[in-house]
Structures are given as structure tokens and as C-alpha cells.
């Protein structure tokens, strides 16, 4: 039952914002299902892919897809993903996390106001 609610919630977030499913699933998996972090991340990416495809169909039908921006970003994303996974072994995660949060708070306030 718990997992059904978690899944449903992640789906709503994914469809509503086009992102953020992982921010629900990863902490939920590690806190509620008690699985280790690597497995939680791996399982969350696998689960989100079908949710993204479902959401994509709805956005596509409503003509919100801009292929030019989409493909360019995806190309950058693939290269960045490879470099990021190499950097992962060398960087201090705590400092990065703090910088990330500061950035998030700044932009979210800008968005709400």
C-alpha cells in the first residue's frame, strides 16, 4: 500500500512539473523501504522512465514540445552525464550539496514572487 501511494505521488509530480520524480522516490525508497542509496537511485531512474514517457505524450498532444531545444539539451546532457559520473569520484559532495540548496532557494523565491 505504501509503495502504491509513493508511486502515485511521484507520478503526479513527474506529470505536473516534468521533473522531480526522483526527489520523491529516492528518499522514500531509502527511508520507507530501507534499501541502500545506490539501489534506491538505480530503481528510481528505472521507475521514472515510464512515467516520463506517459507525461511526454500529454505534453506532446498539447504541443508543448520544442524539438530544437529538446535535442540540443539532450546532447549536452549526455556529455555532461558522462563527465559528471567521472567527477563524482573526485568531488566533495557536501559542499556541492550546500551550493545546490542555496541556488535552489534563490531561484524558487524568484519564481514564486
Amino acid at each position, binding site marked *: 500500500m505504501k509503495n502504491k501511494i509513493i508511486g502515485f505521488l511521484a*507520478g503526479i509530480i513527474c506529470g505536473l512539473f*516534468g521533473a522531480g520524480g526522483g526527489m520523491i522516490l529516492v528518499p522514500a525508497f531509502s527511508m520507507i523501504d530501507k534499501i541502500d542509496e545506490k539501489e534506491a537511485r538505480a530503481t528510481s531512474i*528505472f521507475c521514472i*522512465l515510464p512515467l516520463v514517457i506517459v*507525461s511526454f505524450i500529454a505534453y506532446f498532444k498539447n504541443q508543448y514540445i520544442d524539438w530544437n531545444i529538446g535535442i540540443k539539451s539532450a546532447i549536452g546532457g549526455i556529455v555532461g552525464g558522462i563527465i559528471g559520473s567521472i567527477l563524482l569520484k573526485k568531488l566533495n559532495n557536501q559542499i556541492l550539496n550546500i551550493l545546490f*540548496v542555496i541556488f535552489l532557494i534563490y531561484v524558487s523565491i*524568484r519564481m*514564486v514572487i
Partner: protein
Amino acid sequence: MEIIFGFISGIVSALGMGGGTILILLLTLFMGIEQHVSQATNLIFFIPTSITAIIMNIRNKKINWKLSKSIIIYGCLGAVIGSIIATRLETTILKKIFGIFLLIISFFQIYEIYTSYTKNKKTNNKDIKNK
């Protein structure tokens, strides 16, 4: 410019900190792209980048299949509802809700950083005492 933003988001995703939200923010705030279109762009962005990660995770046997099943079934149901709501919302309202969501996420992140910090401190103190 889109390639650079994609690149940054790819790095952030690989580090496991929500690259998707970063991409949406960069596109809307710095390029003035409409909120719905930015969100849709992130959906496109996610598909190729996640497939490579999924293949690697399957090889390393890191995916919990039993857990995935119910998450995917109910997740798809949620995604249909969520995306229909999103397509019916006005841009300005969607942007505000997105901002509120990010604020909530930020507070969770601060809490997480704080707990991992205090945990590290405790284990460090124990190490010192043991010596």
C-alpha cells in the same frame, strides 16, 4: 546555449542532485522559455540520459524489480493525472506552484545535509575517543 544548459544539468544529474529541475530553471529564467515547454524539454532530456544509466544499473544488478512493479503501475496513473492538470494550468500559476515545490525540496535538502553533518561529527568524535 541549450547545449551548455543540458551539459550543466547532465553533470548535476550524474552527481544525483536533481538535474531535471536545474534544466527547467535555466531554460525558464535565463532563456525566457515558457514553463510548459521547459518542462517538456526536460522530459525529452530525461529519456536518452536515463536509458544509458538504466543499462549500466541492470548490468550492475542494482535495480529492485519487485519494488519497481507497483511504483510503475501507480506512477503511470499519477503521471496521467499530473500532466493533464499541468496542461490545463496557466503558465504563471504553474511557475508559482513549481517554485513552491522547489522551496519544499530545498528545506528537505537542508535537513538532509544537517543530519549527515551531525552523523559525521559523531563518528569523528568516536574515532578520536577510541584513539
